[in-house]
């Protein structure tokens, strides 16, 4: 049979092509386009090559923000992942009212919008009317997120832990529930300690969900914007100015479009790089090329 030449099949992929183009490719290319130009106003643009990238990479404030960001994200992971696992291990199993209640309580923080979380903590931490701030003041702890950098930084961190540990716990809980009871019985019979059960049964079985949890929490915390913005707007000083804050100041505050675009691309690559590193580490340690 002769092959029928019919190019009309191309029409079938047009919808997908258009959607991807408008949702991803065109915006991204616009950013790339901006990043290589100096823009003074509509119609007044000059090609500047890689100049913006050089400026961005040499920017001291950006370096500070990046270091702050990395420390913050690692702190988020270091607290939320172990805490989430612990909570999941302590949760009741099976189908009971207790289980449902625990699940609902855990899911509650996840339902609250970011800026509301920020507002809650902003009020909660105030020394005059906030429960937390007032309590600290009453027992003599000097806590003030508006002019103490460390306090502000810790508040943002605790806020994130409060908001998102539930997600890690729920993911881990799902992983734990998928372990058949025979595994625990066998471990009991093999005389395994609680630690050994965790190390050789629970942790390996949670690996899949932990990859997701680490990646989600990393990417999310690396792009944190709303909470510090609501709390102190990035202050005091620059102590809670993370990458997103700085980017927004640059793009919206100073209208430095070219520089901000170059920054966005660098930012994107950093997130991608870190995610790749985490993914590789976790999958490797699981598979472990022990030969």
């Amino acid at each position, binding site marked *: 049979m002769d092959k029928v030449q019919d190019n009309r099949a191309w029409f079938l992929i047009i919808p997908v092509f258009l959607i991807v183009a408008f949702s991803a490719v065109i915006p991204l290319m616009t950013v790339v386009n901006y990043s290589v130009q100096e823009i003074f106003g509509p119609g007044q643009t000059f090609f500047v090559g890689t100049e913006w990238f050089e400026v961005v990479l040499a920017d001291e404030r950006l370096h500070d923000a990046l270091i702050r960001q990395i420390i913050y994200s690692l702190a988020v992971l270091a607290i939320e992942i172990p805490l989430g696992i612990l909570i999941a291990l302590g949760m009741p199993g099976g189908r009971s009212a207790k289980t449902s209640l625990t699940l609902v309580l855990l899911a509650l923080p996840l339902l609250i919008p970011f800026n509301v979380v920020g507002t809650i903590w902003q009020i909660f931490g105030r020394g005059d009317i906030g429960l937390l701030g007032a309590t600290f003041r009453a027992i003599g702890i000097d806590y003030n997120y508006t002019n103490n950098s460390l306090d502000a930084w810790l508040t943002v961190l605790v806020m994130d832990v409060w908001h998102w540990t539930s997600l890690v716990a729920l993911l881990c809980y799902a992983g734990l529930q998928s372990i058949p009871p025979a595994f625990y019985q066998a471990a009991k019979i*093999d005389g395994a300690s609680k630690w050994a059960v965790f190390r050789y049964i629970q942790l390996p*079985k949670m690996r899949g969900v932990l990859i997701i949890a680490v990646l989600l929490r990393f990417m999310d915390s690396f792009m944190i914007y709303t909470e510090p913005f609501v709390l102190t707007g990035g202050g005091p000083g620059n102590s809670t100015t993370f990458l997103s804050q700085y980017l927004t100041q640059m793009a919206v505050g100073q209208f430095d479009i070219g520089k901000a675009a170059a920054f966005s691309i660098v930012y994107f690559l950093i997130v991608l790089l870190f995610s790749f590193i985490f993914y590789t580490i976790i999958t490797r340690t699981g598979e*472990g090329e022990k030969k």
Partner: protein
Amino acid sequence: MATIQFDNLGHSYHPHPTRPEDYALRRLSQEWEDGKAYALLGPSGCGKSTLLNIISGLLVPSEGRVLFDGLDVTRCTPEERNIAQVFQFPVIYDTMTVYENLAFPLRNRKVPEADVDRRVRQVAEALDLTADLKKRAQRLTPDAKQKISMGRGLVRSDVAAILFDEPLTVIDPHTKWILRRKLRQIHEEYRLTMIYVTHDQVEALTFADKVAVMYEGAMVQLGTPQELFENPLHTFVGYFIGSPGINLMPCTLGNDHALVDGIPIPLPDRAVPAVGGKFELGIRPEFLELTRSGSAGSIPVQVTGVDDLGTSKLATVRLGSHTLKARLSEEQEIPALDAAIRFPTRWTKLYRDSHLVG
């Protein structure tokens, strides 16, 4: 190794059991000998897993006691009883190698590393796992994984008993046969007390020295495969063991005979009081004799079908309103018109309310 005793043991998942049906395991007093291979046989839901979990210590019985070598262990954990158990589906530690998997129960018990190595290699040898010792357990086939599960049970030389909970379910028929032989060999070599739960009569009969048949939570008979076959104490044993199972017919009692649809069938000499309950007459197809009518003690029947099974023939006959099966040798001729059957009194069993009375 240990002798296992059940003292008035019973278990119910109900908080306040009253009727016998409330019990997952009905009252039981028995002694299982040291170093023997036992099989727990019965259909799903008959209580065999309940009994196994009580023996292993995963479940505390609601009534009675379990004794190992005379010592009350009813409330002891599996570790304290020193039990090994192999489950239906392979349980392996994914992140460990086969060697580490086998060594795990020993290392947890702080056995010196030299002994660990010796035992692991012995067991691996016995189960044909030597070539895989360095591989990660996760990468193996399901039957290799199940072998590892078994190996973890066998690796401890000092266990009181090894329990197998339908361990060959996931294994293909050929490997199944080999593994069962292996277990049997290991049993003969080390004289371990082994308890094997299964719903497959062939598995139970080929593996065990003694088979305990369970039915609706009760242990209806404990005996050697031969005893179960020749002298089933309960109609369920007759029906469950053997293929096809025992022929059963409701009957009434005469002086020294039973009446099935008004046809007298001679009974063994033992006198049976003709009181109470529902009587049934049973005979295994293997023992039912097919002859020509006219010979002494024979009852004329109609042959309705013959199945040639290759090594034997299975005849289906009608006696009154009942259909009976008779297993015959390949050579035996089957009379077409004037067929008759004879019930050898030695093999004719009388049951009252399902229990053997004569």
